[in-house]
């Protein structure tokens, strides 16, 4: 295995984030703090507890998920799209690197960035709400796998995109609405019966539910359903990436 090659890609991507620290770190954290202020402190103080959890604390897992999913997709998609855009992918393709190594480098960096942002938001949330995490180890694992899976998805988007517009279409028009409607700010049972069933078609519901379960021991769907769904989602992303590299789709001529 070309460990140095993986490390080079990983470090290069991490350095890119440090060069654009405001965009990479400050911006998502600030946005989440604003959510805490508006939904947690201002509106949340007038809301009833949900499953014996204050509304401010209740939205913490959803807000973390909202941010890390978007960040994972954005970081990974831009990470691989930019070399494609400026033409430097020739270096990756002509180097003694397997596709697995290239994916580890890019997805690893995007995962690290999103995971770090998730942890920073979690720490920040303690400034605004009282929070007890019931299953901290599970919570960290679930967060890490979510970051990795959405980074894989972002990597796919970055490869198949032909321009910056396409790069933004999936995150803006598909992932953002799904995340907002996936129960970040409410539980599914707060919806009318028809919309409850409809909401179950949203894959993000299972992820937010699983993550919320690790905080409070309760979720919209059973935890095993969330885990199985997460594994299926991850497997689909890995299979698509494997197909892309096997066929050279949008990478090799």
């Amino acid at each position, binding site marked *: 295995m070309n460990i140095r*090659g993986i490390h080079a890609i990983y470090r290069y991507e991490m350095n890119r984030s440090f060069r654009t620290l405001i965009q990479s770190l400050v911006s998502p954290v600030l946005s989440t703090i604003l959510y805490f202020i508006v939904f947690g402190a201002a509106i949340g103080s007038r809301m009833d507890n949900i499953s014996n959890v204050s509304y401010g604390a209740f939205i913490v897992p959803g807000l973390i998920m909202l941010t890390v999913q978007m960040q994972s997709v954005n970081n990974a998609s831009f990470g691989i799209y930019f070399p494609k855009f*400026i033409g430097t992918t020739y270096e990756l393709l002509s180097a*003694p690197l397997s596709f697995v190594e290239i994916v580890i480098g890019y997805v690893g960096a995007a995962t690290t960035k999103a995971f770090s942002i998730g942890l920073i938001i979690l720490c920040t949330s303690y400034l605004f709400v009282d929070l007890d995490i019931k299953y901290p180890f599970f919570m960290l694992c679930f967060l890490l796998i979510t970051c990795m899976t959405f980074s894989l998805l972002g990597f796919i988007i970055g490869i198949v995109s032909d321009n910056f517009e396409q790069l933004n279409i999936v995150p803006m028009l598909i992932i953002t609405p799904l995340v907002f409607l996936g129960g970040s700010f409410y539980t599914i049972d707060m919806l009318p019966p028809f919309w409850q069933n409809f909401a179950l078609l949203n894959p993000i519901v299972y992820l937010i539910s699983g993550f919320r379960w690790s905080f409070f021991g309760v979720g919209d769907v059973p935890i095993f359903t969330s885990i199985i769904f997460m594994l299926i989602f991850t497997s689909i992303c890995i299979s698509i990436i494997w197909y892309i590299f096997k066929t050279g789709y949008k990478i*090799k001529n």
Partner: protein
Amino acid sequence: MSEIINVQNLVKKYDNNFTAVKNLNLKIRQGEIIALLGPNGAGKTTLISTICGLSSITSGLIKVNGLDVIKDYRKTRELIGLVPQELALEPFEKVINSVKFSRKLFGKKDDNEYIEKLLTKLQLYDKKNNIIKSLSGGMKRRVMIAKALSHNPQILFLDEPTAGVDVELRKDMWSIIKELKNEGVTIILTTHYIEEAEMIADRIGIINHGELLLIEEKKELIKRMSVKTLKVKLKKTLDIIPTKLKKYNLKLIDEGKSFLYYYNTGKERTGITSLLSDMNKIGINLFDIQTEETSLEEIFVKIIKE
């Protein structure tokens, strides 16, 4: 010299059914400079891309140092450095970081001494901490070469290395290429500048429509294909070529004041002596003689047209 690249029956067909490379065979010897000439779309870049791993192979076999470029891609790619045609660089990165990044992609340990030597050789040392975006086109071209050489490859592919660069920089590039050859690096370059091939290549390959039309030692090729022209200025004007001189296929010019005689230096006899002797016999006196040699460019155009 031993063979370092062996391309056997290579075919590259794109999804739109366009065949860019047609059953191409090519052997490249270690330590030589080979120039691949051909018009735009001839298949030169596609050939390089298949050897370096940028393009998939439809059929055929490519071996580098005796190893299959697909099965043993790690070992073969370690031997190769590539400078593509386009200036493709991360604009916001420092020169030195970009070169170090390339070296690590090839699995090599950091070697500051080697990288600094390389930058010095390419006259980039003073610019090592500059952001790539701030460099001139020529300097960026040098950074591309530095990146390609960062892992100390035995083979260097240069895809139109001097396209769009000024004459001075082009000459600098040629001296860099010659220096690399002296260090034992095998160099394969594609170019539109015939003068470039004439100046630095050991062998010349001509590609058109995805086929390798010929590959030959440069000197041999020029000798074999070169046609010299003898221009004879006459003391008295001729209306027609005299019957005795018809066998020389002379061409009257300047309203009969001169004629041209074409001969091949590669042949045992040029025919000049007998022409002059026959002229003397029939009383045609010459006033002056000039000779001109066909350039590699004219040879190239002739082969492509054929």
